[in-house]
């Protein structure tokens, strides 16, 4: 949420850049890959076998709906993996 209105009064955080399907997306150090994607306004990124979109469902690493490919390695839970500056993320399409 907007840090100026945030009741937890966040301090400064360092920016990072992640390449998602070829485009640069800005995030904050300490965010998960899912956090970066959601904060950038993306709700879904994986496509199931039948072609349906999926994103975060459980948020705690159980449902595996949010799998992404990170730096060429497939099947990483976006909600569990902390994003690192310069990470290359590609979305997975099983259709």
């Amino acid at each position, binding site marked *: 949420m907007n840090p100026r209105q945030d009741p937890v009064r966040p301090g400064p955080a360092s920016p990072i850049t992640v390449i998602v399907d070829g485009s640069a997306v800005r995030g904050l150090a300490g965010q998960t890959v899912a956090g970066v994607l959601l904060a950038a306004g993306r709700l879904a990124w994986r496509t199931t*076998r039948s072609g349906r979109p999926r994103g975060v469902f459980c948020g705690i690493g159980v449902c595996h709906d949010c799998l992404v490919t990170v730096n060429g390695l497939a099947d990483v839970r976006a909600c569990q993996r902390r994003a690192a500056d310069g990470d290359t993320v590609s979305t997975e399409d*099983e259709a």
Partner: protein
Amino acid sequence: MKVVVVGAGIVGAAIARELAMAGVSVVVLDRSASAGGTSAAGEGNLLVSDKGPGAELSLALRSLTLWRSLLPEVADTFPSIEYETKGGLVVATTDAGAAALRAFADLQRTAGVSAAEVDGLDYEPDLNSAHTAAIFYPQDAQVQPAIATEALLAVARRHGASVRQGVEVLGPLRGGDRLTGVATSGGDVSGDHVVVAAGPWSGEVARRLGVELPVRPRRGTILVTTRMRQRIRHKVYDADYVGAVGSDDAALQTSSVVESTAAGTVLIGSSRERRGFDERIEARVLSAVAAKALVLFPFLAGVAVMRAYGGFRPFVPDHLPVIGPDPRLPGLWHATGHEGAGIVLSTATGELLGDLLLGRAPRVPAEAFAVDRPTLRPHLEPSPDQ
């Protein structure tokens, strides 16, 4: 005629189908649910590539013919049994292995197996290019073994068989010196014949019925990867597979069998180890299986494994199935001991048992599978450690 089949695994299912189609009244009993034992705990390779000339190969070749011919029976009423004739590629990774593999293939050709030396990379572009020989076996096929079991049972039911789940065989019903049925947790079930097809538990069931049968479990563990774009097109094995199947060694052995399934996952098998009915999954076994698979397909290193599972291959000391009547107890029949090939061999096993029981001429040499064959006879007495 009424026949009681003990065990609703793939062997019991194939027998039930065969007999029911021949008009026999069949009841299948299983202490658990159908397709809940070994037939749901392994892979569904229908292989000839791993078998040398002999009785087992004849049974396997006949089985492949039967698998093809029964497909229409299960085509529309069932989820697909995932029958695929994708062929097997056996790969050697050492010079000695290459020589042994070529010699083995030469022998197999004399017995009706198609085997062609090929450039492995033409068949599997992601194969380790450092391999030393590759032989392609076009007859090798696969099914999904649990669905295949259920499909065979469904055909049997359509022909009047009944399948009773949750019914455990506890002991014999006898009339004079004949077996006339079985006592079960669900009451007595009588029959003119009783066929024990209880997989690795067949020895225990036989003992309950009053005879010794040396069937023992041989543990196997398999890894399942996440779904991926298909990069493995055939069934691919390392040539060590050929050695491990016939080996008597109790210690852990592994040889790679790598195949992709209709669901998109890759199955990586498997280990062989004699350790009773010990179900534990151990890191050392998983590591050994994984290491072998990477020798074939280095790209798999980054692939995620999501499950490990395993079962117990039913084996007998001379590594041949036991199919036929038990001369020690009239009315008792066996169909077991298929070790790592029970899925492929189930169809011809059902047919052979039907031939013998119904007095038809067997289409494969039956003596090799007889209970009292010379190589098994010494093992039919209770061993002192039991």
